[in-house]
C-alpha cells in the first residue's frame, strides 16, 4: 500500500518537476562539460545544457523513476541534442571557438603549449570508438557511475567497466607515442 503510494507520488508531475529542479545546480555544469567535450564550443555547450533541462521538463510525463535515474536520463537527452547539433552544424560554417582561445593577460607561450597538449589528448580521444569515447565522457565529465553510464548507453555495468579500461589504455598508449 505504502509502496503504491510512494510510486504514485514519484510519478506525479509536481514531484518530478521538483526532482528535476533540484538537479539543476549540480548537473548543469556536468552536462555543459559533457557537451563541450563532444562539440568543442563553450557557448553552444552552455546552450545545450540549458536545452537539456527545458526538454526534460517538456518530456517529464515520459520519465519513470523506476527505470533510469533522472541524471542518467538527462544525459540521454544531452546525447541526443549533441547528435542534433552535429546534424545542424553540417549545414552551418562555424568552428569551435576554443580551437584558438586567446585569453587576455596569459603568456602566449604557455597558451600554445597547453593548446598542443589539448590537441594531443583530443587526437587520442578521436582514435577511440564512439562508444569508448562516450563512456569516458559520461564517467569523467558527467560524473555518472558505471551503472548509470550503462543505463544511458543500454550496456551492462561490466561492459562499461571493460570499455573504460580499454579506452584509458588506448589513450595512454597514444599519448606515450606522442611523447
Amino acid at each position, binding site marked *: 500500500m505504502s509502496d503504491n503510494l510512494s510510486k504514485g507520488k514519484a510519478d506525479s508531475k509536481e*514531484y518530478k518537476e521538483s526532482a528535476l529542479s533540484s538537479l539543476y545546480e549540480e548537473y548543469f*555544469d556536468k552536462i555543459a562539460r559533457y557537451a563541450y567535450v563532444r562539440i568543442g564550443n563553450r557557448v553552444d555547450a*552552455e546552450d545545450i545544457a540549458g536545452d537539456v533541462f527545458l526538454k526534460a521538463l517538456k518530456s517529464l510525463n515520459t520519465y519513470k523513476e523506476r527505470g533510469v535515474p533522472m541524471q542518467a536520463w538527462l544525459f540521454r537527452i544531452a546525447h541526443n541534442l549533441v547528435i542534433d547539433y552535429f546534424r545542424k552544424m553540417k549545414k552551418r560554417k562555424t568552428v569551435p571557438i576554443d580551437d584558438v582561445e586567446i585569453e587576455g593577460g596569459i603568456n602566449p607561450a604557455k597558451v600554445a603549449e597547453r593548446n598542443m597538449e589539448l590537441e594531443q589528448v583530443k587526437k587520442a580521444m578521436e582514435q577511440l570508438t564512439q562508444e569508448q569515447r562516450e563512456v569516458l565522457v559520461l564517467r569523467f565529465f558527467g560524473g555518472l557511475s558505471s551503472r548509470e553510464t550503462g543505463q544511458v548507453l543500454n550496456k551492462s555495468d561490466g561492459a562499461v567497466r571493460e570499455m573504460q579500461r580499454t579506452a584509458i589504455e588506448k589513450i595512454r598508449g597514444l599519448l606515450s607515442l606522442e611523447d
Partner: protein
Amino acid sequence: MKNDFEKILDDCVDRINQGDSIESCLADYPALARQLRPMLQTLFSVKEAYSFVPFPDAKRAAREGFNIALENLSRKREASQPHFTWLQGWSRVWATAAAVLVIAAIAYTGIRLATPQGETVPYPEPSIAAPSLEPGPSPVVPSIQPEPSPAVPSPQPEPSPVMLVAKPSLEGNFVFLISDDVNAIGDFESVNLSILKVSLLKSGNPDELVEFEPEQGEVDLTLLKGDNTQEIWRGNLPEGQYTNVSIHVSSVLGILKETGEEVEIKLPSDKLRITKDFQISKDILTTFTYDLTVVAAGSPQSGIKYILKPQVDQSGATHKPITQKEKTDIE
C-alpha cells in the same frame, strides 16, 4: 582477474570524480599501484585538457529560462484543474461529520420511539450514544493527515529577466564603440562586419536584458586597429550595474591583402558575448568599447582559417560627467 582490475579501476575513477587523489586510491591497492598509476594519470590528463566551467551568467540565464518554463507549466496545470477542488480536500471531513449526524439522528429517533409519549429524555451526546445503540463495529473513519511533502525541495523560481529596448538619442548617457585588436587583421584589405543588435544584461531583481539595434551596424574592422573606434549607437540606457554585453553578428566577410581573395571569417557563434561589470548612471556618459579581433588558425599546409573573436581584456567602459556645454553643443 581482469574483471577484478576493472572493478578496482572503476572504484578509483569514482573516487577521483568525488575529489579523491590518485595517491589515496593507490594506497588502498598497493599490489596494483604500478598498473593503476599510469591509467589514473591519463584520466587526469583528459580531465585537465577539457577543463571547462560554464559562465555563471550563462548558467543563470539558462536557469531563468527553466524557471519560467516551470512556472508556465504550473500555471497551465492550475488552469486545467476543475473548480471547487477545495471540496475534495474537505470531503472526508464532511463524510465523517455526516456519518456522525446520521448515527445521532437514528439514535435520537430510536430512543423517542422506545420512550412513552410525553416523557422527555435527555438529548443523547452523539459520540457516546451512537455506539451504544449500534452495537456493530464502528465505522472506520480514515484519519485526515496532510500529505507529506516530497523529499526534494520545491523550486523557488528566480526572477526572470525583463526585456527592454533602448532608444537612440544624441543626448544619451551611453555610447557603444567597436574597435579591433591587431592579431591577423593585417592580412586583410577589409573585414566587413554586420551587427544586428547589441544586448546588455543589467543586474537587479529581476535582471533586465536591455537591447538596441545599431544605427550604424556595418563596420570595417581594418579601419579600427589599435585605438581607433567606430561609434555604432548612442542613446539612453537605464541606470544600474551591468554584467555582460553581447553583439549579434549576421555576417563577416574579409578581403585578403595579398591576393584580393574574398574569404569567409568564421564565427564561433552568432552571438559574441563578453562578461564585464560596469555601471551606468544618469548624468555620466558611459562609453563602452567592444573590442574584436580576427585570429588565424591552422597552417599553410593544412590551410589557414580566420576566426572572429571578442577581446575581453581590451573591452570595457569609461565614464565622464555630461557637462552642460556638451549638452548645448549637441543641441
